[in-house]
């Protein structure tokens, strides 16, 4: 969704730029022709179901995977070549907990500090600061492998930011934690972002995606939408109709047969129906269909949620089941 004006700006405005980034695994195209521009100091989200190419993209951006074609510049450095100078500037949090389960919280942080050559003088102060900030003081002597999912996630983030990286790459960081921990985690991300850190975070939670400054929706390796969440919600290209019906299942079956209807999703007693904007008089179409079938219902046009955006842009409506 970039335009010519953006790409003419200096590299300073963007932490990440990618052009036609593609990665194939045999016959499978995991990421296809991806263009990406991540502004500095912002939280940029990758939203998509499992297998949509989020992890593959992040791994290409930090130099773990070589792109099959296309190119990407991260913090001004090309990721196709040597990423040695890039490593000290990025923090990476893997999808799976990747610190050492048989080391304690403190030992893990000390190890990471030494690996990043954190100055010896300020090392212990930095670790103490992180322990306090990430609520790890009470478990400092505990083996990381014996901690809860939330604690492990806080430790992983603390380790990823220890060396004060310019860019944080977070691969589904909240997939294994409870909602409370997720909220606290996002509070931390905003703190980091306010301090100037650029954050690229992948998720399959709608509420998390909604918090990002900017968002790309990936579907089967293809970027299908890109923009601030509010903007995406305004420009779905769909009319959203919410229906309260006595027998929602029968109403859903009735509406799904209409060729004009993009998708019908049941939410409790309500149905959310997506109809393309070019369809004339969509509300009448829906209510007419239902009353003809003898199904009493109240219908109204509502504003799009991010989930509606997701359904609208992904090729297959039922992707949303896996994604939420």
């Amino acid at each position, binding site marked *: 969704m970039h335009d010519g004006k953006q790409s003419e700006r200096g590299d300073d405005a963007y932490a990440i730029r990618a052009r036609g980034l593609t990665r194939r695994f045999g016959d499978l195209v995991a990421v296809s022709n991806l263009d990406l521009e991540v502004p500095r100091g912002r939280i940029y989200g990758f939203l998509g179901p499992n297998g949509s190419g989020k992890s593959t993209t992040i*791994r290409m951006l*930090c*130099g*773990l*995977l*070589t792109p099959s074609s296309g190119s990407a510049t991260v913090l001004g450095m090309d990721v196709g070549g040597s*990423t*040695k100078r890039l*490593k*000290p500037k*990025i923090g*990476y949090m*893997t999808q*799976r*907990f*990747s*610190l*050492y*389960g*048989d*080391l304690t919280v403190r*030992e893990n942080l*000390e*190890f*990471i500090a*030494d*690996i*990043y*050559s954190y100055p*010896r003088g300020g090392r212990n102060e930095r670790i103490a600061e992180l322990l306090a900030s990430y609520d790890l003081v009470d478990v400092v002597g505990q*083996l990381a492998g014996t901690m809860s999912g939330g604690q492990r996630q806080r430790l992983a983030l603390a380790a990823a930011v220890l060396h004060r990286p310019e860019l944080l790459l977070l691969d589904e960081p909240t997939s294994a934690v409870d909602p409370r921990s997720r909220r606290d985690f996002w509070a931390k991300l905003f703190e980091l972002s306010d301090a100037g850190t650029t954050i690229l975070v992948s998720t399959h939670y709608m509420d998390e995606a909604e918090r990002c400054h900017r968002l790309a929706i990936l579907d089967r390796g293809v970027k299908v939408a890109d923009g601030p969440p509010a903007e995406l919600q305004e420009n779905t290209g769909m009319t959203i109709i919410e229906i309260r019906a006595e027998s929602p299942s029968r109403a859903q079956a009735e509406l799904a047969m209409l060729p004009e209807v993009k998708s019908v999703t049941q939410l409790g007693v309500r149905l959310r129906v997506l109809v393309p904007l070019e369809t004339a008089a969509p509300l009448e179409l829906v209510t007419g269909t239902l009353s003809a079938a003898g199904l009493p219902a109240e219908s109204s046009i509502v504003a799009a949620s991010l989930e509606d955006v997701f359904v609208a842009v992904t090729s297959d409506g039922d992707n949303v089941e896996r994604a939420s």
Partner: protein
Amino acid sequence: MKSLIRLLAVMRKELRQLGRDRITFAMIVGIPIGQILLFGYAINTDVRNLSAAVADQANTHLSREFVSNLRHTQVLKIGQPAESPEELEALLRRGKISVGVHIPHDFDRRVLDSRPDAHLLVDGADPTILGVANQLVAMPIAFDTWTVAQPTQRGLEVRPYYNPERRTAVNIVPGLIGVILTLTMMLFTAVAIVRERERGNLELLINTPVSNTQLMVGKVVPYIGIGLIQLALIIGVGKLLFNVPIRGSVLDLYLAALAFIAANLALGLFISTVAKTQFQAMQVTFFILLPSILLSGFIFPFAGMPIVAQYLGEVLPITHFIRLTRGIMLREASLAELSNELWILLGFTIVAMTGAVMRFSRRLD
């Protein structure tokens, strides 16, 4: 300075993990002691007490004395008498005996005529038993009425150097050091990188500024200390239980072991970069361990092996190490006299380590 801090960080981490891994820790001590007891007591090429039966069809004074002499050699353990050579064959076939002694009716006559006096029926499937039976052939048989023993033809006299009591342990223990170090050093490092890959640690590590060399060397160095502790254990137990001497310099022995440990650790690391899983790493380790036991001269004399096997043996670090340990411990050789073997070990280390560092990919594809 930065790279030294990183190297030390990797080493410290490795030691901490090792300290918490009780089973591995127990193996460091358990493998050497268990193996030395097992091999030290079980492997005995000085064969005695082979089960045997005698069919004495002569049953004369001379034949009974002959059987008694056979018994006194302690080479044969003679059980129930048999009636006929056919019965001896049956006993052989059923695995009841390894050697059958057949003394024919005309035994006395044959002794006088200098014809073959008796027959040894030997289970020759095992060449060792055949070799032992051949020793018996040299045993003199004579009537005690003969005043002068028949002159025995002696062209060569054997003077056994270095191990006059012919104790197998003296030859086995120096080689066993090599086998044990090969097993433990290679196994520990072969799983080292693979384990981190399996647990997901590697994905994080290769995204940090730590270099391949820092990572590899840092992972390996703690094990050098462990290898040297194992060496002390083996030579200690060897001395205590089997009275295996160290005639040469202990320092020379340690220097040789250092080179050998380094070679195995480097080889283990190389395996680690090839194998995808810990299970594969172990399989490859055992694939190398087996020829290390069989083709290194540890059990069978190196020179006696077919030429192809000798070439294969030369490629194994343990072959060179066993030459070093046997030379230093038994023949009082100095390291300088055996320097060729030492250079080969060092060369081996450099090649394997370079291979490992080069093969180790900082990418996941």
